[in-house]
């Protein structure tokens, strides 16, 4: 019981600003975000920060504001107030592509593969600032040589990524022909192709069968060991509890509690929130 | 509301939405220019009133046709590019009937009457001289267009119910071509003179001149307003009308509620086509001539009206139609007549860019 109270208190103090250099230790910091849609408040003062190199879980009952928070951080929606900082920059209200180019990349809850593009094309799309994304460089004979050189590198990386996720046999398949689980893998692989500093995973396991789920989680752990930071939104509590060292619980647009799996599991307020009690 | 507040709002508009600000400025300038022209006598008051009257008459037709376009847009979910050619189909079928009725017993042979090649003077159709011919013609225009629309729905659109709006839009371009050139195949591309004889008209004297209003214009206004009223009552009072609005609002919920969506779609086509057919017939009555391009040329103006009024809104379509009609005519104060349509199109584009939900935005099929 006292653990739970501790966890609650810890949240409040940590969310406040402090003197340390937060940008190195906590790449993503969200402060007092508010967002409402036509009178319905979706996020109401959410604050949290994500530790570098961690695998943090973001959970909460339906309508807690997780997805909106996700969209506010990644620039899909603009917050009414509050701030989002990434690294040593404030990224509040930036366009999605600007956020992505800072090194903060997301996946989508319902996998959004590019159907009429092959798996390889999907992956090769992702790397940031490719030389050949400039029109004249792709066309002019002299400049194109540089483009092609980079294309080879990108292709090789894409194949490595396919090997890593063990979907290399699907390389030349249209993404639209993939199964639900394979799409999830592709989605994550594509996000990683951008060489991000941090990845936001929006329900990466929804609709994924257990054996693939295990594999996907292994990949996440492996990548985390390589220094990636992950924020994971997931409704499968087992997954969150067994894999995340730090868990943030949202409820009614706010952060209700933070802590380790054990702390969250024994937090009465969290249990109440999940069973539908007003907190 | 204080001056400073107005000023502040103006300043914010200028900073946040410069394009919109520019449009507002141009609008104000044009209005001032109109006053200037009226003041200096460069443009007469009667001329302006005449433009407004003519614009209203054309606008009612556009609005009438716009209702159907708006209904199909909101209930079937696509921009129907063949809607203008429904007007053409109505006009030709209706006028062939009018000629046959009016010309029976005259010297002209049936073929010439059916093909509208008989001399208008010999047939002599006007609302005053042959009211029955006009009335029957209007009726056939409605029936023929409805049958055509239902046939096309069955053959073209029904197999594509699950297709996206763009696929349907492209298909409707194909339908438009087929209808228009089927008309050409029968009637050729020649312009057909239709009415002849004395149309009763009256001159309204206004300050510095006069505005002429003829019986066909009055018939058109009465017909259009009656039809609009009918549609209003249908949509507001009948269960079917309510179901149409419900379906435009939320198709999935309509299904869950047990509304037979296919029957609602059929009703949508019937109403839309009936209005389109009568609009085609009436505009030909007003102009006294037509050719195969009648509806196609109007189509973009109809789109403009619907977009101006807000897609899905029936009243919006009517208001938008009148607004587009008036703009189309009133623009003649500043620009030569071959630019009148350009002005209407420009307004439509501006509306799409700055207020895509239209002036009646948010309201659906009401």
């Amino acid at each position, binding site marked *: 019981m006292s653990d739970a109270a501790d966890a609650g208190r810890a949240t409040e103090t940590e969310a406040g600003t402090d003197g340390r250099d937060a940008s190195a230790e906590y790449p993503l910091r969200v402060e007092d975000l508010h967002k409402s849609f036509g009178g319905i408040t979706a996020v109401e003062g959410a604050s949290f920060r994500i530790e570098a190199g961690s695998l943090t879980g973001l959970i909460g009952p339906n309508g807690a504001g997780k997805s909106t928070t996700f969209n506010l951080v990644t620039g899909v929606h603009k917050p009414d107030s509050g701030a989002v900082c990434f690294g040593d920059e404030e990224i509040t209200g930036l366009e999605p592509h600007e956020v992505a180019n800072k090194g903060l990349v997301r996946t989508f809850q319902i996998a959004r593969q590019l159907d009429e593009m092959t798996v390889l094309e999907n992956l090769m799309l992702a790397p940031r600032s490719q030389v050949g994304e400039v029109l004249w460089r792709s066309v002019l004979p002299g400049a194109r040589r540089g483009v092609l050189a980079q294309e*080879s590198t990108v292709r090789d990386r894409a194949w490595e990524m396919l090997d890593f996720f063990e979907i290399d046999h699907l390389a030349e398949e249209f993404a639209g022909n993939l199964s639900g689980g394979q799409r999830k893998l592709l989605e994550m692989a594509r996000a990683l192709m951008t060489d991000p500093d941090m990845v936001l995973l929006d329900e990466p396991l929804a609709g994924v069968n257990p054996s693939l789920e295990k594999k996907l989680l292994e990949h996440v752990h492996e990548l985390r060991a390589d220094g990636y930071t992950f924020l994971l939104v997931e409704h499968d509590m087992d997954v969150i509890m067994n894999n995340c060292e730090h868990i943030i619980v949202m409820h009614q647009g706010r952060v209700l509690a933070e802590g380790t799996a054990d702390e969250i599991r024994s937090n009465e307020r969290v249990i109440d929130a999940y069973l539908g009690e007003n907190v | 509301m204080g001056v400073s507040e107005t000023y502040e709002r103006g300043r914010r508009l200028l900073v946040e939405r410069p394009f919109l600000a520019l449009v507002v400025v141009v609008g104000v300038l044009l209005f001032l220019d109109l006053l200037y022209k009226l003041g200096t006598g460069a443009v007469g008051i009667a001329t302006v009133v005449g433009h407004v009257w003519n614009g209203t008459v054309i606008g009612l037709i556009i609005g009438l046709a716009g209702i159907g376009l708006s209904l199909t847009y909101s209930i079937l979910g696509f921009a129907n590019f063949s809607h203008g050619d429904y007007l053409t189909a109505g006009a030709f079928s209706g006028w062939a009937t009018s000629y046959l009725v009016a010309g029976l017993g005259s010297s002209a042979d049936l073929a010439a009457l059916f*093909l509208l090649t008989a001399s208008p003077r010999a047939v002599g159709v006007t609302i005053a001289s042959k009211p029955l011919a006009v009335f029957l013609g209007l009726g056939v225009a409605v029936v023929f267009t409805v049958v055509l629309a239902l046939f096309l729905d069955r053959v073209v659109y029904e197999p594509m119910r699950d297709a996206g709006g763009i696929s349907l839009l492209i298909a409707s371009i194909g339908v438009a071509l087929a209808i228009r050139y089927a008309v050409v195949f029968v009637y050729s591309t020649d312009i057909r003179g239709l009415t002849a004889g004395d149309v009763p008209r009256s001159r309204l004297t206004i300050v510095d001149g006069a505005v002429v209003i003829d019986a066909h214009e009055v018939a058109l206004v009465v017909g259009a307003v009656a039809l609009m009223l009918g549609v209003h009552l249908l949509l507001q009072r009948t269960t079917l009308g309510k179901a149409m609005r419900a379906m435009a609002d939320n198709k999935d919920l309509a299904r869950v509620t047990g509304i037979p969506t296919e029957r609602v779609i059929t009703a949508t086509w019937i109403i839309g086509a009936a209005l389109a057919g009568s609009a085609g017939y009436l505009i030909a009555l007003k102009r006294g001539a037509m050719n195969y391009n009648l509806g196609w040329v109007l189509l973009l103006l109809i789109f403009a009206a619907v977009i101006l009024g807000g897609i899905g809104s029936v009243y919006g379509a009517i208001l938008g139609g009148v607004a587009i009609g008036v703009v189309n005519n009133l623009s003649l104060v500043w620009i030569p007549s071959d630019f009148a349509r350009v002005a209407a199109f420009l307004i439509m584009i501006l509306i*799409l860019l700055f207020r895509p939900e239209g002036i009646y935005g948010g309201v659906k099929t009401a």
Partner: protein
Amino acid sequence: MSGGGFALADARSYFRDSTAATAAGVLAVLYVLLSIAAMAGVGGTVPAWRETVLVFTVYALLIVAVGMLWRYSRNDAVIIVGVMAAIYVVYLMAGVLFLGLPLNGIVNTLRRITFLSAVYAMLVLALNLHWGYTGLFNIGVAGFMAVGVYTMAMLSGPADIALGLPLPVGIVGGVVAAALVGAIAALPALRLDADYLAIVTVALSEIIRLSYNSTVFQSSIPRLRLAGITLLPSIPVGTGGGQGIRTPTNPVRALYYKDPGDTSAGLTDLGEFAFGAADGVSVTLIGGQGVQPPVVIALTYVLVLVAFVAGFYWLLIRVGNSPFGRVLKAIREDELVANSLGKDTQRFKIKTFMLGCALMGLAGILWRGSTGFTQPGDYLPIQTFYVFLALIIGGAGSNTGSVVGGIVFATLLFEGPTTLARLIPELLQRLFNTQLGSPPSTFVGAVAPIAQLDLTPLLAYSLRNISTLRFILLGVLIVYMMQNRPDGLFGHRKEVAAGVDLRRPDRDTGAGAATDGSESG
């Protein structure tokens, strides 16, 4: 594995493939028609069966050849050339066997279908960049063509309402103007949904056409006055209004004539040689009249167009097979994904819209470049719909499909009906020895005799109005394609957007592969 068995198996497999079946079906119809005609045509002195067998064999081989190409060719250029060649054979046989055209006429017919194929191939390629690649639903193609052609004519045309600048300036000016108008349209319009964009673009193209049609700009651009203040002075450049405007002299003429504008000034050396050869050689070969100078000039111009088609194709393949093209495809599939991966999709869309419009302007210039004249009626929305139908037939998203779509549209749908309308009376004459007689002047006159079971007046009327029926055919075809084959002949085909071969790199080539090898080896 006997040869015959192999061919049969192939035939079965590619007829199962509906793409090939569609192509084969179109050819098969022509094949049957022309074969019947062949039998009829040789009814006289020559043994009928010999020529019949000949024609049958040629067309059977054609169908098999095109089908094989379609299915097995990895080289898209071969497919394009193969389709074009097959169509040449069809037209050639129709011209020689049934219409009895002289050499000059036959060469001119082939020249004409090549010209149209090239023009539509270019336009479809440009539209494919918008719609096929990026998903931008632009149905204002005709307007952007008009801007290109009119700007060129007003800059370098021969009329006194033009500026009289050198032709290259006019061409570049036209292309740039089309791109700029595209940019103005794109900046705000690209935020709209596809159906709104469609309405905006078609309205814009009508605004452009009506402006060129207006008497206001006929001889000069008038000064602009508002509330008594002059905002713009008058500029002495005009559009010619509804009467149209003269375009610069076909530059190809300069190869053959000393003064391209005046034939009486005499021929150049090349002219002497080429005209002489075209006439002389063909006279020697076949006898009768040879190929005449106007056809030689037109043929030369077509060669230029073909070179431009190759250029368009090359350019768009490069654009497509690059990281740039990959982003465009991603925008088409799901713009939010592209955006979330760090691509500034608005910028990509605007650039693409400008490039496509510039190419439409250039294609327009090339289309009107040999005719010496253009008018607003050349740029009706129907022109846009032609291009769209051609793209749908070819298959949106494929550059090869675009070219094939352009060819198929121009030769079979646009020119095909009129050619058939000329063939049918010949066939009736030879088969049934009946004459259609002069067609009735009205529809009623054509239909009324049906009561007496006489269909010939309706047939004659239909043949005379074949261009009207062609529009109906095109309309029906658009509907058919959207219902049954929205992907067209080449849609849904894997044309990978990348600059390099994407197969797994070999373990022992390049330095990059070495790390790869050590990891997975």
